[in-house]
């Protein structure tokens, strides 16, 4: 186990290194000049050059990257060009909110998606199945901005069940999690249905039925753990997909997560923030996948950690 973890963590470090190199290189190639954003309209070329020097942006790529990397090792992600604050500070302030939202969203989509997929698989071909299918496709096809606003309008403005955006209590979390969850639920339910159908025709399900087990026991104890494996792998993947959804949802609900930070940074070529957020989300994705891989053997004992 420890050996496995060490190996995986080492791989993770390599992956992060790769991500940082590629990101850094891409940002380096970007034609937009951050110095001009900093210097403002009235700056003289002299000032511009001076700022460029101070930021070390006049250095060759390798030097810049090496400096970034050495700082990174000591936990220093640099300072934002626009906000002028420590990137670490900005991310640390916003990360908990995003993680919380992620957890909420994953709970939502897993709960919704699995239930829908399960029912659809069991009632395969029926009207219920068709309805659920249309439902999951609506979830996937509906623009999140609209879904978010709609939920907000109905449940917060009209019914007043939840606050209109903001952050703090569990009530703030419901609607944004749901908005993200509706999209994910579409995916999960289709995946679940597909793998459930496969599992339901396996011989061991027949055995379980032959034992005279109740339908619930067959579905939840025998079929679900077998069908859920691809879904667990999906949760790892999901974290990556999640990063793009978060931008929209966070802004609709005024959720103080890193999505908004990233989006603003992208718009304004705030390279240190882009780098920081990229690395943090890469970390999350890598850890998510690792977690999915670690959990898998607990669900299916045939799987070995390799």
């Amino acid at each position: 186990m420890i050996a496995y973890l060490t190996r995986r963590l080492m791989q993770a470090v390599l992956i992060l290194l790769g991500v940082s190199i590629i990101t850094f290189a891409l940002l380096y190639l970007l034609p937009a000049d951050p110095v001009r954003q900093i210097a403002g309209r009235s700056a003289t070329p002299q000032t511009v050059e001076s700022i460029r020097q101070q930021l070390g942006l006049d250095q060759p790529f390798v030097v810049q990257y090496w400096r970034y990397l050495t700082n990174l090792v000591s936990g220093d992600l640099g300072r934002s060009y626009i906000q002028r604050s420590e990137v670490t500070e900005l991310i640390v302030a916003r990360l908990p909110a995003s993680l919380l939202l992620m957890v909420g969203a994953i709970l939502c989509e897993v709960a919704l998606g699995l239930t829908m997929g399960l029912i659809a698989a069991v009632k395969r071909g029926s009207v219920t199945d068709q309805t659920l299918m249309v439902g999951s496709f609506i979830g996937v096809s509906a623009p999140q901005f609209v879904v978010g606003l709609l939920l907000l309008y109905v449940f917060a403005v009209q019914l007043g069940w939840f606050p209109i955006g903001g952050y703090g209590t569990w009530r703030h979390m419901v609607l944004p999690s749901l908005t993200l969850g509706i999209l994910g639920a579409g995916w999960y339910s289709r995946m679940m249905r597909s793998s459930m159908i496969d599992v339901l025709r396996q011989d061991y399900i027949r055995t379980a039925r032959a034992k005279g087990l109740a339908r619930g026991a067959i579905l939840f104890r025998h079929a679900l753990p077998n069908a859920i494996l691809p879904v667990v792998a999906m949760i790892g993947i999901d974290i990556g997909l999640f990063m793009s959804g978060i931008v929209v949802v966070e802004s609709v609900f005024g959720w103080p997560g890193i999505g908004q930070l990233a989006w603003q940074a992208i718009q304004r070529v705030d390279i240190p923030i882009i780098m920081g957020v990229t690395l943090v989300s890469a970390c999350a994705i890598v850890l998510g996948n690792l977690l999915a891989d670690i959990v898998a053997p607990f669900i299916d004992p045939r799987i070995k950690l390799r």
Partner: protein
Amino acid sequence: EEKLDPNAKQGGAITITYKDDVATLDPAIGYDWQNWSMIKSLFDGLMDYEPGTTKLRPELAESYEISPDGTTFTFKLRKGVKFHNGREMTADDVKYSLDRVTNPKTQSPGAGFFASIKGYEDVAAGKATGLAGVTVVDPSTVKIELSRPDATFLHVMAINFSHVVPKEEVEKYGADFGKHPVGTGAYKLAEWTLGQRLVFERNPDYWHKGLPYLDKITFEIGQEPIVALLRLQKGEVDVPGDGIPPAKFQEVMADPAQKARVVEGGQLQTGYVTMNTTMAPFDNVKVRQAVNMAINKERVVKIINNRAVPANQPLPPSMPGYDKSFAGYKYDVAKAKALLAEAGHPDGFETQLFVMNTDPNPRIAQAIQQDLAAIGIKASIQSLAQANVIAAGGDKAGAPMIWSGGMAWIADFPDPSNFYGPILGCGGAVAGGWNWAWYCNKDLDAKAAKADSIVDPAKADERYKLWGEIYSKVMEDAPWAPVFNEQRFTMRSPRMGGDDKLYVDPVHIPINYDYVYVNDVQ
């Protein structure tokens, strides 16, 4: 002393929302829509404007004197002004603040405004650490010598970049001063939860007795404008910092109760299309004039729900120097076609129109595109992130046409010169500059310098006239096609009081925090 509003009561708290993060509250650095007026409430400069107007008045300076040649300004400081940390502000702080903002290490985007101060070049080049032209005469007197007469200098003393900061706090927080601002302003920062909210509290020691009215202002960050409006309608928010979102504009205006709470005002803003005068075929003035005539500005205005007025010159109407009599280029497709033919393009040509990607700019660009197509100019649209458009504009061969909306010019201060220098003058027509038309007219530059050397306030009208002429000449060369001047529509909750003009204050955007109040305090 200024008269206070007899209806205003002190106390109460309001909530204001913004979509984007507040980057910094360091007056030397903050240059965004949201932090601009926040900084104005936390800090003070030597000069300021009368609330809701563009009229200059002394602020931290009690009085000032200008030498006859217009190169020496002597400011007498107000006594008993204290920073939020309790220390009294002195002339040394003024000097320190100006030295700091011009020092390249500070990386201030506003350093260039101080270029007329003696010794600026040395500081900018890193050869000196202080401005030779700024001297502390005594603890309450500062003398500033300029290297050339500068009529806008009092305005410069009113912009945020020149606001006074206490040295000890700056040194204490270093680069994080922007997160721990300490000034002399009406409010002080009480709380800043990154990404969520900022809370301003009344500065009890504010030198301007009786101000501010409000006890507390909460800025909630990261709110989508549409959602902010929903919350306003529910009474959770008092002012939507980003204004009324276009998508909700019709709805609000259709409801008399809501409409009554909308305040409309002019803005020191012009939306225009730049044409790269160094790039064929826009190097031909006839082509540029044809473009000016081809754009149906009325329709463009209609597309943004009439939230603007058509423009025919660079200056917005509320800017001194605006020429009411100027006719500009009338919308005339036939004539535009004729001009194009004269220029040797009877069948038009293909070109590109760059635009920033936030609504409504791409829509406006499409309307312009269609108008240009009517005279044969096939402009393909490049709708890009702000930084990319700016990069293209600063590249001589980058962008033939740019729609300025969303990026450029809301004036830093209400003076006609503010629309010239970096965006129309030769100085801005350099790689990485902001003169996206790459328009460089040496005669006009000279004339501009001449106008700005008329320092005497008594001769202001003469100066404005001169500027008016400059812009008329610019329009003859037509490097821009001015399209409209945006109107501001701010909305306030029913409980908010204060003169309407405070809500469309031309310099305090979106509202003048120091003077607004709420009606429901006991």
